């Protein structure tokens, strides 16, 4: 059973971290042989001087590891930079393996005022960037003053640093190792947001190597010089150059705090990251981490080719881009002894939901039906989920609506997870009859009030492999209750554009944000225009135009927005209450018709070299957790 604590409950943990004495014997640290050689050669200071006064002590999963080895992985090119982000997970704070808590990583800890309006971050004394320069409060203040508040670099403020009135929260340096954030509102989700401020990301994290980046910033270097540098590198303007230089994956010179630092670029055929000699973490015996020398990401142009290489055993630990449909093949090849295969199910939700557009206007008759709750409920009853589970999900997972996993405190209860998921064709037919859809055409398709056959088009992107099959099965089930269903497989970008333009009737995607309904771009908030499922693209327009355009959100969705706003300023218990009510509303209104969930569909089939160790058997698996980053990748190791 996982224990989930939200930031409030975490305070005790974090405060404890401040007071914690140095767990490892400060005088007796060990380091990788390669680094020891460099120290001997005088190229590197001794390990005691490279580590902070109080290093991060990382617990190991199985046992204390051995130094060495190259962790082979595969990636799909520069747009797949998150492959590396998930391995590096370069945050001041990070989620624990089960996704239940947030722990200090680069930072030493954090504490808030009683009203959560003030947050104080404490840094580790003596922590250093990968080039040996000290990491101090100035690196956070640089981000705040010169990046966040610079219009050329940040055109609109991220919501997590915004005050209630839309201005930026105040960030100030108290001393070299203490920074204070001051909001005009309670910021109870501060730590969850901070745990997603990732130094390896393509966008600016809340801490940047000021000493390195100043030479690309006009506030510190004459504008002509910065412009000249931009031009010399063929960039249009200095801000483009600054972003490229600040992104570690694109610039090996940029110092980092992560366990490994890039030595080639993500645009190279092999993207290599190598041990950071100044990494702040040790194991409990005082061995400086990481154990593994190098991670090599080999470029593959095609996911199928990548899977073929994975089946052949070319990678040491990888779940990303491994297709669940290949699971039986991997299981079969496991016999060769080259690797083992484990599964990490998704972190709640449902792995294929059919979202009906409740603001569809191109055909008002079908639009009206999709906006009717009983119509959606009838369609949910009409789906034979067992068939989908067996034929598409290899018998893994369970039938469920898009609510959190049972072990999560936000879980609203079994009856809501299973709501309307039983297969009952008669009930579906009766409900559709009751909606006045009693007349049928020659093929048995129900006629709508305008005399046309009721037709739904499901747009589907083969993103995680199996959705077109789910769509075909759903289409068959819906036609059996008299709703004509067309499956349209679309290219990704086109699908996304049609979604934003309100041209999609229905689509299949996964609902993977159920553990994080209040942070990031959660799909329950109709104000999020990006990444939102197509349950109603016109609602956000109504809200942004003050009711002049778009469609007014219906009552249950208004309540959901209220709940999200409340959760952002109440403590842990209040958040749990709000989340549970949110998911009761979500399941009851079937805004998304859930099918099967808790399968290893999304990066959940993990192929691990037999000599690769300290990988947890179970783990919270989701993007906000940076899986496998939350497995504490620095303690992974190879046995000889």
């Amino acid at each position, binding site marked *: 059973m996982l224990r989930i604590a939200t930031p409030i409950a975490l305070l005790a943990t974090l405060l404890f971290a401040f007071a914690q004495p140095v767990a490892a014997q400060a005088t007796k640290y060990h380091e990788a042989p390669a680094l020891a050689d460099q120290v001997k050669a005088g190229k590197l200071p001794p390990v005691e001087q490279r580590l902070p006064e109080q290093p991060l002590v990382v617990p190991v999963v199985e046992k204390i590891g051995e130094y060495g080895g190259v962790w*082979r992985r595969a990636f799909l090119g*520069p*747009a*797949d930079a*998150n492959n590396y982000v998930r391995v590096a997970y370069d945050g001041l704070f990070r989620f624990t393996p089960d996704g239940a808590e947030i722990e200090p990583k680069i930072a030493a800890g954090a504490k808030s005022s009683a009203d959560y309006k003030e947050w104080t971050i404490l840094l580790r004394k003596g922590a250093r960037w990968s080039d040996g320069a000290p990491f101090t409060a100035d690196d956070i203040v640089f981000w705040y003053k010169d990046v966040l508040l610079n219009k050329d*670099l*940040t*055109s*609109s403020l*991220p*919501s997590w640093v915004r005050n209630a009135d839309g201005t930026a929260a105040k960030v100030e340096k108290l001393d070299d190792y203490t920074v204070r954030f001051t909001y005009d509102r309670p910021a109870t989700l501060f730590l969850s947001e901070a745990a997603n401020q990732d130094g390896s990301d393509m*966008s600016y994290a809340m801490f940047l190597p000021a000493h390195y980046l100043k030479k690309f910033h006009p506030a510190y270097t004459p504008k002509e010089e910065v412009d000249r540098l931009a031009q010399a*590198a*063929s960039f*249009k*303007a200095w*801000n*483009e150059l600054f*972003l*490229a230089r600040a*992104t570690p994956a*694109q610039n090996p010179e940029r110092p980092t705090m992560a366990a490994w630092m890039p030595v*080639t*670029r993500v*645009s*190279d*055929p*092999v993207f290599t990251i190598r041990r950071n000699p100044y990494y702040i973490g040790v194991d409990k015996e005082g061995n400086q981490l990481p154990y593994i020398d190098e991670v090599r990401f*080999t470029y*593959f*142009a*095609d996911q*199928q*080719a*990548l899977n*073929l*290489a994975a089946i*052949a055993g*070319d990678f040491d630990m990888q779940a*990303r881009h491994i297709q669940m449909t290949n699971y039986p093949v991997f299981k079969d090849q496991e016999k060769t002894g080259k690797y083992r295969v484990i599964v990490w199910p998704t972190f709640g939700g449902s792995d294929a939901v059919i979202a009906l557009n409740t603001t569809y206007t191109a055909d008002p008759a079908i639009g009206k039906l999709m906006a009717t709750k009983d119509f959606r409920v009838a369609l949910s009853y009409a789906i034979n989920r067992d068939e989908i589970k067996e034929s598409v999900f290899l018998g893994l997972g369970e039938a469920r609506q898009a609510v959190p996993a049972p072990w999560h405190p936000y879980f609203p209860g079994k009856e809501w997870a299973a709501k309307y998921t039983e297969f009952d064709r008669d009930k579906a037919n009766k409900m559709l009859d009751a909606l006045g859809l009693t007349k049928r055409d020659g093929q048995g398709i129900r006629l709508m009030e305008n005399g046309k056959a009721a037709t739904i088009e499901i747009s589907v*992107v083969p*993103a*995680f492999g199996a959705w077109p099959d789910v769509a075909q099965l759903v289409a068959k089930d819906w036609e059996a209750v008299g709703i004509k269903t067309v499956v349209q497989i679309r290219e*990704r*970008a*086109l*699908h*996304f*554009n049609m979604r934003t333009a309100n041209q999609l009737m229905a689509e299949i*995607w996964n609902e*993977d*944000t159920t553990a994080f309904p209040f942070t990031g*771009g959660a799909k329950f908030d109709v104000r999020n*225009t*990006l*990444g939102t499922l197509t349950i109603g693209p016109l609602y956000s327009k109504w809200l942004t135009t003050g009711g002049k355009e778009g469609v007014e959100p219906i009552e249950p969705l208004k309540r959901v927005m209220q709940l999200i706003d409340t959760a952002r300023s109440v403590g842990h218990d209040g958040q749990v209450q709000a989340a549970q009510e949110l998911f009761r509303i979500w399941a009851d209104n079937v805004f998304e018709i859930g099918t099967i969930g808790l399968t290893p569909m*999304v*990066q959940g089939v993990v192929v691990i070299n037999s000599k690769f160790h300290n990988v947890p058997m179970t783990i919270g698996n*989701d*993007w906000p957790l940076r899986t496998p980053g939350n497995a504490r990748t620095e303690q992974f190791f190879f046995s000889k």
Partner: protein
Amino acid sequence: MTRYIVQRLLLLPFLLLVYSFVIFVIIQAPPGDFLTAYVATLSASGTSISAEQVDALRHTYGLDQPFVVQYLYWLRNLLSGNLGISLEYQRPNAELIGAQLGLTVALAVMSFVLTWLIAVPAGIYSATHQRSVIDHVLTVINYVGVATPNFMLALILMWIAFAYFGISVTGLFSPDYADAPWSVARVVDLMKHIWLPAVVLGIAGTARLTRIMRANLLDELNKPYVVTARAKGLREWRLVLRYPVRLALNPLISTIGWYLPQLFSGSLIVATVMNLPNIGPLLLRALINQDMYLAGAILLIYSFLTIVGTLLSDIALAMMDPRIRMEA
């Protein structure tokens, strides 16, 4: 002749200008832009990005500018000899294309040489031994070769290599040599890998070329000069190779200029399936991701080589066949 060449060359910049506009329009034709595609890619790998982050990137990359402004910016760069920066790779396009060029050309030349080495003798043999058993066998192989899409062939060969020999034959290098500096060992490693894609790429061309060679030669073999030569006692092989084969090769040689753009483009689908690091997949990715400056740069070079290749073909033809020359 010189005047004709100069005329064609003078037309070149104008044609390229027209092409640059058409290319830019077509690349921009799909809905959305680089960032829409980027967001879609992220979502499809279980990642989210906030609207503010996307806005910031769109502003940084100038994608919020009108179409004409973006085109003129690109054109201005082109005129000063700058192919621009790839949005996805964040590196100069010239550098990206340059990095792939060597292997692309090496692979194309290998499959080209292989094609000709097999096709010409096979065609000659088939024509001189018409309706023999070997001719029939070659004919069947040729038809299969022409009819099988070569990416299919690639998949089958890859599967056989894995299922029966336990090796994965993706890429042009073993993992150890993928990013190693050039050395003798690396070249040996390359040779170990390059033959398979070269065969796959060459096979369709070989089949087609063999058929053409066979048909051309059959036309020649029945001509009176062949009969005359034979009557005069010229030895058969000497006769065939010296006269009819030379004539039969003419149509093939006149199309040799068309290989120029092909050398550069790399085979798109085969290269993607076999995970070959060449320009084909680079272009495919750029188009899918709407990385317009990179796709534009590749397509523009491709257009340039097509124009030059056609010109070279015309010149070759004119040199060989006096009837085609402009002055005539």
